[in-house]
């Protein structure tokens, strides 16, 4: 493990909507070059946790600490654009070039002197308006090429397919040269071949560019392979730890079943083991010799996958 400043830390996050508890005592830390994956059944609070980490909603209790000036690249789950807005994919990507200084509750200390801040407030918008043409647009084309969406650039953004849209959204998240990438179900609607490619790409850029990556996923197999840390969420932190360990923990298996070969086949149980393990990483191996859990086999880092999706 590196000894670097974490990009983002969350401590004891609680979230309630009305009377309903959505998140209970969630903590996590994310360093550069790390991939943390949030998994959990529908309604487990994954998206809510993501929004809290992004600063889109204030948690009911708990604390989020972002590295000062942290640049976040965010890939939303879906994006709906009205057909009346004439916008090419290229323009959509270029609009992402204008990264504003990220506002956050954690202002760097000491605060900027009044005069400087006043000057910035007055000058920055003006500069931004007049420099529209001067943005370095080469990044846009470079990333478009990497993600193989160059041919889509001139198309209206409303006309692209679901899988293409995911790549476009990822490109947009990357264009601001973020330190932290937050991906909400990045491979949703992408075919298996494309999923593998996308994950390989994400894995490559975190090594090459040192991004920290936080993603939400339903897919247990492919994500597990490259993830450093898995958080299994079901309102409380059901289990967490290294991918192999998580997949072997009884809580995980209770939540997702052992027949995880078919991804859509999980059932959501509220059993005793899951109830009393808030935030405890479960690393002990509990394997039933008569019926070995399927997931252990398929998610082992060293073992080649039988399905042949990975090379």
């Amino acid at each position, binding site marked *: 493990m590196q000894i670097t400043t974490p990009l983002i830390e969350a401590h004891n996050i609680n979230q309630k909507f009305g009377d309903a508890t959505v998140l209970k005592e969630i903590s996590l830390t994310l360093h550069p070059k790390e991939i943390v994956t949030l998994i959990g059944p529908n309604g487990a609070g994954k998206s809510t946790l993501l929004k809290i980490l992004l600063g889109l909603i204030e948690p009911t209790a708990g604390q989020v600490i972002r590295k000062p000036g942290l640049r976040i690249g965010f890939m939303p789950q879906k994006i709906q654009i*009205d057909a*009346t807005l*004439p916008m090419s994919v290229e323009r959509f990507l270029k*609009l992402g070039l*204008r990264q504003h200084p*990220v506002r956050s509750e954690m202002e760097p200390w000491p605060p900027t002197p009044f005069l400087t801040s006043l000057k910035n407030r007055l000058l920055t918008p003006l500069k*931004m308006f007049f420099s529209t043409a001067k943005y370095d647009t080469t990044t846009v084309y470079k990333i478009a090429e990497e993600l193989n969406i160059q041919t889509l650039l001139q198309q209206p953004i409303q006309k692209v397919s679901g899988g293409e849209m995911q790549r476009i959204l990822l490109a*947009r998240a990357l264009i601001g040269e973020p330190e932290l990438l937050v991906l909400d179900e990045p491979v949703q609607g992408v075919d298996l071949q494309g999923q593998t490619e996308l994950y390989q790409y994400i894995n490559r850029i975190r090594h090459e560019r040192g991004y920290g990556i936080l993603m939400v996923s339903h897919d247990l197999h492919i994500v597990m392979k490259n993830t450093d840390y898995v958080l299994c969420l079901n309102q409380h932190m059901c289990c967490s730890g290294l991918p192999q360990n998580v997949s072997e923990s009884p809580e995980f298996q209770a939540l997702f079943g052992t027949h995880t070969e078919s991804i859509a086949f999980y059932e959501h149980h509220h059993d005793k083991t899951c109830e009393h393990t808030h935030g405890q990483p479960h690393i002990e191996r509990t394997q039933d010799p008569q019926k070995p859990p399927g997931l252990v086999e398929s998610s082992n880092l060293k073992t080649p996958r039988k399905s042949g999706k990975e090379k």
Partner: protein
Amino acid sequence: MEWFPSFMTFAIIGGLGLAIISAPLGVFVVWQRQSYFGATLAHSALLGVSIGLFLETDLTLTVIAVSLFVAWGIFRLGQYRELSSDTLLGILAHSSLAFGLILISLQDNVQIDLMGYLFGDILSINETDLFLITGIGLLILIFYRIHWEDLLNLTLNHELAQVEGINVKRIQLQYVLLLALMIALSMKIVGVLLVTSLLIIPAAAARRLSSTPEKMLFMSILLGIVSVLLGLLASYLADLPTGPAIVMVATFLFLALLMKKAP
């Protein structure tokens, strides 16, 4: 209908001014699917008229104040309540219309031409209105120069925009207040019931002519100007009510452009 040259000049200048300032607001109303929001503000403008009559204050200013207040109210409610905005706007639109009409009917001593407020009376434009239109035009110009790309980004996706560092709430509120100002002013020209048409019809018609947001804004201004000029002309030649005549021309333009293939 009698036409005096000075009134005609005011009418033309005021109409053109409104066509120009409504375009930048109108395109975003269309892109963000907020036409019902515009209609609600327009209905509440009538409440402004009756409050103004009741308190015997300047009507234009009262309408502006009430519209701003209602816009702010809708904005706040939209932030905190998870009510369907459709329902919320429907309730506000018609309740403010009802309250406005009741308040007017209670005042026996005032004889007002309700038709003038419902359908507009472009001949009532005076110098104050022209100053106000110019002022709001300047505000809109400044706002759009600074926030054009921010507005585009938040139209694309609120959350993405916010993560990228755009102060979504503040910009949206400023935009909504400008919209309220514009609607309060245009009530005189096209009337409460037709105000939104000035916002959305030129913008919607411009869609077929545009491949970028900027082009759509430009075409929307152009179509708005044409609608106002031809509408005034039709109103003058055929003795038609001015507001409806302008909307009619805009609608014909929209229909004609509907035949055209999108770029």
